[in-house]
């Protein structure tokens, strides 16, 4: 592949993209995705890499105005290809998992729901036991988090739903979803502190 500066890449791929440059970028993405996916997937890469590369090239050309030149252009293009590939692969993985779990019970699913609270105010003695500590943490979750925060944590942290899928479920985007869960974590940590406890204290009960 010809060695080009960032400015040369931008010039060649803007407006009417140069065919040689486009083909070289296509080869770079194809080679990189095959290299990294070969160790992650046990499937025929030909069937999926071509689609990922095509979608990535479209995104790269459409977003080329947003490239700020703070890395190599090719690295910037590769990060877009990684996002395209992993977003689709996570959706597929989740689809398979979800189908499996339709046939099984999901004990953890209702963990964040108020109805399973067994002891909302465990005594200091109870806190030294595992069940007492579980009750304390559940109590904090139910009292301190909003319903939306509980739902987000259930989907992402308990069920392992991909962030993009969970964001769609909640009518938001990945960034806002991360912030929603971050606010919940900060609040829980603060409230735990107000009870004179650190995360290490809680974890020590389970050791």
């Amino acid at each position, binding site marked *: *592949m010809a060695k080009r500066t960032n400015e040369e890449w931008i010039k060649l791929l803007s407006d009417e993209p140069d065919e040689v440059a486009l083909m070289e970028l296509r*080869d770079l993405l194809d*080679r*990189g*995705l095959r*290299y*990294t996916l070969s*160790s*992650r997937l*046990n499937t025929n890469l030909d069937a999926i890499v071509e689609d990922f590369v095509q979608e990535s090239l479209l995104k790269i050309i459409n977003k080329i105005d947003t490239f700020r030149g*703070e*890395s*190599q252009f090719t*690295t*910037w293009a*590769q*990060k877009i*290809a*990684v*996002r395209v*590939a*992993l977003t689709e692969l*996570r959706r597929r*993985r989740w689809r*398979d*998992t979800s*189908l*499996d779990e339709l*046939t*099984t019970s999901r*004990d*953890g699913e209702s*963990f964040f729901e108020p109805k399973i609270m067994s002891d909302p105010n465990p005594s200091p003695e109870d806190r030294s036991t*595992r*069940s007492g*500590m*579980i009750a304390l*943490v559940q109590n904090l979750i139910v009292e301190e988090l909003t319903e939306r925060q509980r739902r987000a*944590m259930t989907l992402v*942290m*308990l069920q392992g739903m*991909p*962030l993009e899928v969970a964001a769609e479920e909640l009518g938001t985007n*990945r*960034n*806002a979803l*991360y*912030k929603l869960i*971050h606010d919940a*974590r*900060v609040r*829980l*940590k603060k409230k*735990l502190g107000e009870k004179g406890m*650190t*995360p*290490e204290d*809680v*974890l020590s009960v*389970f050791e």
Partner: protein
Amino acid sequence: MATIINRVRQFVQQLFGQTPEPEQKKEQIVKGLVKALDLTEEREIACEEVFEVIDQYAELVSQGESPDKVMPLVQHHLIICGHCREEFEMLLDMLNAKPA
């Protein structure tokens, strides 16, 4: 394939009673949650802010720079967020792919 393997595993678990009891499951959840709280900082950056700079970060790390020195907030996010960590690791892999 993953679907079939998971169904076989579930069947074996049901057969031998190895499915975690609800109490054990609750313990796992609490431990996972509290470990996340342990790592929680008041100031964190979110996924898209990380995505904006992950190409720069990956180049610096692949050149041998120390992650905690070049962009500590990005490094912290990658510890917390498995999705972004996976994207970073895959990008590093791609940077190391040999030219044709």
